[in-house]
């Protein structure tokens, strides 16, 4: 009997010891610690098995499972999908010079930074004592290497075209020279560009196919343990030497939930956080105390695109009339169940720092719309209920993504009410994006993410000299063009004075609201739910992680949050 007890205690202590080494001080000390633990166990023969078991319980491995969205590719810089969730997963492994926490932009791999008077030179003092997870120290060489490498191999998420040169001042100081001022440099470039370890990447010539284990080594809070592309599962283990603090969990699993129903998975305990839950499902969890529901900013926008080859579409007054005919509030309610904010004519979302509240708005008013259409010269002369403009029937196909039937149905009925016929045509997302970027449509709408933060996103309406801005799905074919807009945009992109820039951005919004190069229909609200009895402390990053990624799982959450489960 007694031998049994001792044996049980011994085993429990051994397990406990391996746990300690698991989350504690690293592999080197493992042998020493476990030997010590065994000795202690042998000494404390009287310790009951129950007590020891409790000890083990306390040190149970902390595994946090969150729902992902399937396979995004191997989690290395060039192989993971250049979309929001792909970047977020990448950010758990790779770090940047700057980062955003709950309050805004903070120096991160950089300890401090300074900007020259002319806005062309950025000097970063790097953190000392940081090393990559393979043990190699992180230095200014790696930063310089990353900028050089990305010039040679463009990275889809961040453009470095505005960078003239990156140079090493000393081991922990790096200087970045720009060829022209770029206002969002700190947040969108320094705060988004993942630093590559030079010693691993210097001989890599085809980064798009580089999926060796060392391709996923960097300084971040997590280390890649397993990537299962078939199941779309990423298993990451905590980096014990993480420079920014202690990671509160041992393992992070980003998994595809079975059946794709994240609410069901959350309720059954399959996952602890559902960052991509549907709005309605999240709202239904709002009253249960163990689930926290966070409503985030609207960082995606749904636009209605016009083909400017259509004679009628090129007429400003007709576009304005069409905006009057659209009931923006009803779109939010009926098509999206309240999960968003109605569109604003100036394109910039109301309530955000760059919003101009004085732009012209187009209230829902069918009579005004009809009047404007007839003033613009559209009339129904053959009595078929559809207007004609210059002898052509105002009947257009409306191209949209297949799960957006609700919005399509609303638009069809709004346009019908003013005498414009829309023939709905749905296709998959990629086809619709391609049709829009090739100008191969008559009317189309779709939703784009990464919409927010610095107003460089207004570059999509500038047709001349708007490089350096992140490439968003632009419209192809004949587009709207305004010299005045181009001039102001290009001035605003390099303007250093904040007040002046605000003034310019306000003017840009006035032009957009007046000219309506596209109709802004809806801003989608991000929503997430998590089980706060397992892990608490998630937050939405202001303006989104990196470039407007609307997820609650900023990597710093895993340092600042609290593990709640037993």
């Amino acid at each position, binding site marked *: 009997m007694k031998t049994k007890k001792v044996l049980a205690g011994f085993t429990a202590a051994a397990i406990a010891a391996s746990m300690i080494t698991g989350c504690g001080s690293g592999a080197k000390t493992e042998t020493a610690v476990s030997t010590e633990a065994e000795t202690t166990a042998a000494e404390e023969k009287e310790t009951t098995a129950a007590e020891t078991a409790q000890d083990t319980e306390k040190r149970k491995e902390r595994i946090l499972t969150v729902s992902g969205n399937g396979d995004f590719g191997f989690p290395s810089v060039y192989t993971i999908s250049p979309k929001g969730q792909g970047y977020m997963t990448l950010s758990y492994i790779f770090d940047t010079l700057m980062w955003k926490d709950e309050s805004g932009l903070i120096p991160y791999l950089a300890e401090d930074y300074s900007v020259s008077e002319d806005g062309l030179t950025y000097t970063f003092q790097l953190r000392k004592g940081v090393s990559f997870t393979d043990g190699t120290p992180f230095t200014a060489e790696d930063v310089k290497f990353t900028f050089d490498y990305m010039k040679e191999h463009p990275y889809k998420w961040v453009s470095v075209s505005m960078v003239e040169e990156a140079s090493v001042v000393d081991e922990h100081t790096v200087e970045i020279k720009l060829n022209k001022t770029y206002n969002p440099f700190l947040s969108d470039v320094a705060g988004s560009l993942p630093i590559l370890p030079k010693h691993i990447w210097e001989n890599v010539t085809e980064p798009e196919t580089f999926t060796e284990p060392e391709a996923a080594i960097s300084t971040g809070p997590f280390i890649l343990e397993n990537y299962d592309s078939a199941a779309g599962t990423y298993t990451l283990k905590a980096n014990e030497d993480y420079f920014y603090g202690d990671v509160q969990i041992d393992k992070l699993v980003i998994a595809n939930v079975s059946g794709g*129903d994240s*609410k*069901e998975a959350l309720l059954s305990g399959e996952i602890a956080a559902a960052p991509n839950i*549907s709005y*309605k*499902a999240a709202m*239904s969890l709002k009253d249960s105390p163990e689930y926290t529901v966070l409503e985030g900013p609207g960082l995606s926008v749904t636009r209605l695109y016009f083909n400017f080859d259509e004679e009628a579409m090129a007429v400003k007054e007709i576009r304005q009339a069409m905006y009057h005919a659209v009931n923006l509030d009803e779109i939010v*309610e*009926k*098509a999206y*169940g309240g999960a968003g904010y109605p569109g604003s004519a100036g394109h910039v979302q109301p309530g955000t720092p760059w919003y101009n509240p004085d732009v012209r708005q187009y209230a829902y008013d069918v009579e005004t719309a009809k009047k404007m259409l007839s003033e613009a010269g559209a009339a129904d002369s053959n009595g078929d209920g559809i207007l004609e403009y210059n002898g052509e029937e105002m009947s257009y*196909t409306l191209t949209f993504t*297949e*799960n957006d*039937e*609700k919005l*399509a*149905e*609303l638009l*069809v*009925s709004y346009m019908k009410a003013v005498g414009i016929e829309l*023939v*709905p*045509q*749905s296709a998959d997302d990629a086809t619709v994006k391609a049709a829009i970027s090739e100008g191969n449509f008559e009317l189309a709408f779709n939703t784009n993410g990464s919409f927010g933060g610095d107003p460089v996103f207004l570059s999509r309406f500038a047709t001349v000299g708007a490089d350096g801005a992140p490439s968003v799905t632009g419209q192809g074919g004949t587009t709207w063009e305004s010299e005045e807009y181009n001039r102001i945009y290009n001035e605003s992109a390099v303007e250093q004075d904040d007040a002046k820039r605000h003034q310019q951005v306000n003017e840009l919004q006035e032009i957009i609201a007046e000219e309506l190069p596209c109709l802004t229909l809806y801003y989608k609200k991000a929503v997430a739910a998590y089980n706060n009895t397992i892990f608490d402390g998630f937050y939405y990053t202001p303006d989104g992680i990196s470039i407007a990624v609307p997820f609650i799982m900023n990597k710093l959450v895993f340092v600042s949050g609290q593990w709640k489960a037993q």
Partner: protein
Amino acid sequence: MKKIWSRLSAVQRICAGICIFYFLAAAFGPIFSPFPPDDFSSPALLPPGRVHLLGTDEMGHDIFSMVLSGFRYTMLFSLTAALGSVSLGTVLAFASLYFPRIGRGINHLATVFLIIPDILLILFVAAFAAPTCTNTILSMIFFSWPRVFRIARSRLSACFSSNKVAYTMLIGGNMWDVIRKLWHDGYPVIGTLFMMQASRAVTYETTLAFFGLGDPLLKTWGRLIRSALNYENFFYDNTWCWYLLPAMICVVVYVAVLSVLVFDEGKV
């Protein structure tokens, strides 16, 4: 008419009755429809009540009205597609027998079409063609005639070798004389084929709508089933009882009834 009715078994009578009900619903349903099927002005997600017999969907459509309008679309689809494919198949079957030279070619073509499952071809075409009602029906007709062709051909070829047809041809009767003789033996098969194709067409349409192909805004039963399944809180409240079930039952009953009519031998 009375003669046909008396020949039917009890089960067939019930089925025929249901079919007649479907026709009537398609013809006169919209008169009883409390709301236009594309009207979304009602509050969203109401449970069944006096105003909305089957409640409303997420946008505020009256589900009862959509189910009713589904009768019309379904009948339209199934009858035109069946009529088209049966006519095409029968005409080709006749042609292949009457003009043996081209007959072989048509026969091979039909074999090729039969090898590939027709639903795949229809899905393929529907995905690339402009999503209109007409295109969907045309693709159904175009890809489902070989089945009709095969059955009709084997039946007609038996008739061709019968004495009266052989005699008609011998005395130099033209094509119309031959058709007249054949019709007498052929029409029961053609009638059966018509019902088979009608029930298939509904299955096709529902499948297409379920995959999001075809006219995206047409309120067919397939669309209704799709939007019901897309509704997130489907399993939590009892919404599926009035959102999904009615449309589902309508499709299943229609297909089942037609199948019974085709396969039940009746009292002979």
